[in-house]
């Protein structure tokens, strides 16, 4: 496994099959929000437990054991059994992976969560923040020790949905691969853009189509159909 940083800040891992996995490391701010959500959830759970249990001495004992198990166990169990993310991480769309892009196991998760103590020092996760700012993959001490990294969860990409009913059209001059990809990308994102914006973009493409607005857009559609069909 070799990894090299790309210009866009994504990590690329080369697998034995010779393909590259692209991962986007999550930065300190996102992870701090995730931590805050987790912390509030834990506080709420502990408060509920306290309401239920803190009546008798027996209840106090059970409460303290549960306090221990939830404090140290919650992140580990979440990361091992629920796809590498605690509740807060899931809400923010990030997950923990091993450095080689595989799901974490007990050892990695255990170590990275034990090391939270070291990351906290001297106060409010200062050591962890320094480590994240210094490290190219924004890992905290616990991540470095356990060999893990926190990355953004890949959004489920949809297969291409370009309208196939349009008559193909040859472009007036050859397009570079980069230009072709840009055009394809535009019409794959068509549904997420407003009609006005699309027309505006059509006007921008006047050198290519010789028209403006909707007519230009229609010609662009034809060119894209020609590229794909």
């Amino acid at each position, binding site marked *: 496994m070799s990894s090299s940083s790309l210009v866009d800040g994504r990590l690329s891992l080369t*697998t034995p*099959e*010779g*393909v590259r*996995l*692209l991962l986007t490391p999550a930065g300190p701010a996102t992870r701090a929000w995730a931590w805050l959500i987790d912390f509030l959830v834990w506080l709420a759970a502990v408060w509920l437990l306290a309401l239920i249990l803190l009546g*008798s*001495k*027996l209840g*106090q*004992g*059970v*409460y*303290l*054991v549960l*306090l*221990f198990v939830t*404090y*140290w166990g919650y992140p580990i169990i979440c990361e091992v059994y629920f796809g590498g993310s605690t509740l807060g991480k899931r809400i923010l769309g990030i997950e923990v992976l091993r450095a*080689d*892009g*595989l*799901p974490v*196991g007990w*050892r990695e998760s*255990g*170590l990275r969560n*034990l*090391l*939270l*103590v*070291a990351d906290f*020092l001297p106060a409010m996760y200062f050591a962890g923040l320094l480590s994240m700012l210094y490290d190219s993959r924004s890992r905290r*001490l616990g991540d*470095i*020790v*356990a*060999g893990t990294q926190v990355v953004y969860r*890949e959004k*489920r*990409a*949809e*297969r*291409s*949905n*370009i309208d*196939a009913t349009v008559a193909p059209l040859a472009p007036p001059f050859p397009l570079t*691969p980069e230009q*072709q*990809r840009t055009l*394809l*990308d535009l019409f*794959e994102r068509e549904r997420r853009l407003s009609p006005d914006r699309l027309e505006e973009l059509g006007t921008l493409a006047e050198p290519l189509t010789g028209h403006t607005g909707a007519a230009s857009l229609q010609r662009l559609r034809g060119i894209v159909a020609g*590229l*794909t*069909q």
Partner: protein
Amino acid sequence: MKQKQFEAEHGALWQDIQLILQGKAPESALQLPALYRRLCQCLALSGQRGYSPALTGYLQALVFDCHKHLYGAVAERPLTLRNWLLQEMPRQVRREWRLLTLALLAFWGVALALGWLVWVKPHWAYAFMSPQQLQDYQAMYQPGKMHIGRGGSESDVMMFGFYIWNNVSIGFRTFAAGIFGGIPALFSITFNGMHLGVVASWLSMDPATRETFSAFVITHASFEVTGLLLSGVAGMRLGLSLIAPGRMTRRHAIFAAARTMFPVIVGAAILTVLAAFVEAFWSANAGISAQVKYAVGAACWAVLIAFFALAGRAGR
């Protein structure tokens, strides 16, 4: 080849792979490696031919899922945990005999030295602990006090919870703080040794509390002290790998040290939990005579020392 053609040609393959990943096609799951190699080829082609970003993105995500599915599969190893704790862990501790010696010296050496100092010059106790604390300890171990003050099995459970929350967390902190050059781990061990030495010596000077204290601590101290020392050794190893990484980069050295030390830290946590159990339900039981507690305590010490000296030596 145009994109639509390419999609038409390979769409079925991608569909099959998706079904296998979702667990809906168990009969063809064995073919996944072969299908995966074809998928990787599709991804390479789509990148090279400059197909649309959506298509390459889709294939990229599918490849990533396959990669996790294939390489993330873990073989069933039912005996792992047992071997790990009963063989790997003691071996690892013996491999770290230098650090273990240092930890033993830091704990017992300091405890004995300060114990002797307080024994000879009692006023020195106040240099290490506040008078209030010493008084509290004195009150805690008055004969008969434990029995009355604890109030039966319910409060045993309460104390058990407290010991778990407090002591295991201390062990974890000792290990984690060790990353800063190992010094904090050593300091934690030394501090606890100091505490034990001063308190033990202080309570032994008063004939009233001598018996209650030593009968109380002897059994669970074996597990608790061992657990703390192991946490300290693991923490020191972590910090040392950062200071003296040897022939590796610091990052690799600390990663390797943490990997090998993980069984030790798990063992330490188990020992500390065991200690909490013994302390709450055996040591604090006033119904058991001091002689029995001494005998059982001595046996526990012997078993622990034998375990770390001998376990995992055979069958190498």
